[in-house]
């Protein structure tokens, strides 16, 4: 087993024995779709199959939350002193950061597996290509969000409380001002402008396009794909750069 796999498995096995946290995420999704989603779908008349629209939006929200959790987790590790230990291990930094990133990816895959399966079943009539494109988009979005939280982590080295407050505020704004629960064309002008700043808008619209939703109420897919790619590359790159400078420049733990 490689160093990357060992580091991932060392933590992951505790997430899985027993997988309480993961199952809770699944139950939360099930409850949200079965109760709130079903009720709200009866109220919304402007969008056909709103329950499916809502389910996709909820999966995108989960992706965002898991991605941001991964980023925050890293900062917590620095504060509780685990990171210095990992930094002292006889492996290259690149390997360590790759392991931490992939661990977030594996957690994302585990937590999203059942909700995504339920959503795809609910939508039905899918091709392998559209399913793969959906999964890829969600991962790309997850990495971008984790990178965003990592890029914000420089605040945590000054004040953990400030970091928590800022990331909570950013998260709330990014989710509310996005198209996860309502299409862009139905939003008032001011809200629509704000929603265009949220990465979730691009993630949600691209996923919906791959899953066969009406393209007329979605963003241009090329633009959405470009924005998500730019987000993932820039935030992960910036996050890795900042962390390498910060983690090795300040005393933590």
């Amino acid at each position: 087993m490689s160093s990357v796999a060992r580091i991932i498995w060392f933590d992951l096995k505790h997430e899985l024995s027993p997988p309480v946290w993961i199952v809770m995420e699944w139950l939360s999704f099930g409850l949200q779709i079965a109760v709130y989603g079903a009720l709200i779908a009866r109220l919304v008349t402007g969008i056909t199959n709103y329950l499916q629209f809502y389910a996709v939006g909820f999966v995108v929200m989960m992706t965002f939350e898991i991605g941001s959790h991964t980023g925050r987790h890293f900062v917590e590790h620095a504060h509780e002193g685990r990171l210095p230990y990992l930094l002292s291990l006889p492996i290259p930094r690149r390997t360590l950061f790759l392991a931490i990133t992939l661990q977030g990816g594996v957690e994302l895959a585990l937590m999203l597996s059942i909700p995504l399966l339920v959503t795809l079943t609910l939508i039905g009539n899918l091709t392998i290509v559209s399913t793969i494109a959906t999964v890829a988009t969600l991962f790309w979005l997850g990495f971008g969000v984790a990178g965003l939280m990592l890029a914000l982590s420089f605040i945590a080295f000054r004040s953990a409380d400030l970091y928590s407050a800022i990331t909570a505020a950013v998260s709330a704004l990014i989710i509310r001002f996005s198209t996860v629960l309502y299409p862009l064309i139905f939003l008032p002008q001011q809200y629509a402008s704000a929603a265009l700043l949220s990465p979730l808008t691009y993630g949600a619209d691209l996923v919906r396009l791959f899953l066969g939703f009406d393209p007329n109420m979605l963003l241009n897919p090329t633009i959405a794909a470009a924005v998500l790619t730019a987000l993932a590359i820039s935030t992960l790159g910036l996050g890795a750069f900042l962390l390498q400078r910060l983690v090795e420049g300040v005393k933590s733990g």
Partner: protein
Amino acid sequence: MLAVETKNLFKQYGKAQALKGLDFTVDEKEIMVLLGPNGSGKTTLLLILATVLKPTSGIARVMGLDVIGQPTKVRQILGISFQDARGFWRHKPAEILRFHATICGVPKIKREQLIDQILKDLELWDARNKLFMHLSGGQAKRLEVAKLLIQRPPFAIFDEPSSQVDLRGKRIIWEDIRKLRDEGTTVLVATNEVREAEYLADRVTVLDQGKNVVCDTVRSLKDKIAGGDIVELQIEDLDKAGLLEALSRLEGTVKITQTGENQCRAYVSMAESWVPKMTDLCYKKNVRVTSVRVTEPSLDDVFLHFTGRALEAAPSVE
């Protein structure tokens, strides 16, 4: 080759300077003890050598490898036992050690046997399947030390290896550290415990406010304190003409005071050579020495002598 060499090493955290142009060396296969109060820069130096922290400026080399230019290679030849046990809260001691041994390349064939042995040696066997968060402070600290004893790297760094550990545990840890040195490992120990330093050190570096104050063997450091050795004497007929005066003129005497009838206290340098001269003198003067008690200075006194402050009262710079 020097095991560790730093030249003009600086480390700054915001406005606070933890290391102020530190020049420091460690010879191969010795136990070097860094002695200094909290905040003297010990941990910062250790973290820089372990490539966990980057220095602000200056040079630091481990076994000839530059910590900035070749960090991965440096990490491959060293291991560090941190000051605080690093929290894998939901993991168990045995699996933490297994993970560490595997990542550090301990051969599979002897890994399990070694882990079992170290767990027993450090009296962690009964706690091997407890969650880390349920370990006592002493157990967590011993686990931190156990990682290095399993890894057995060419260069081992221990940051306050026996803090929070009971007396019996301290002895075990100290013996294990000495064994490491005897097997050829270079050991660097940071501590503010005088007894730990005296027990372990081949040489001691006194660190204060981010600077290397003095470095030598424990014996030499103590000998450098003029009048550091205290000799308490009981002599029949101490009041005999000129005896006290003659003792005060003996080579090595810094000060001598009468403390009672036929009793005096002499502050001397190197008591081991002063006492024979004193007995010679008394013999010549036909005076009987009935009791001699020698107290040598502690490393606390050494710190006081070289820095002007007691080890425990020294201020922090971080």
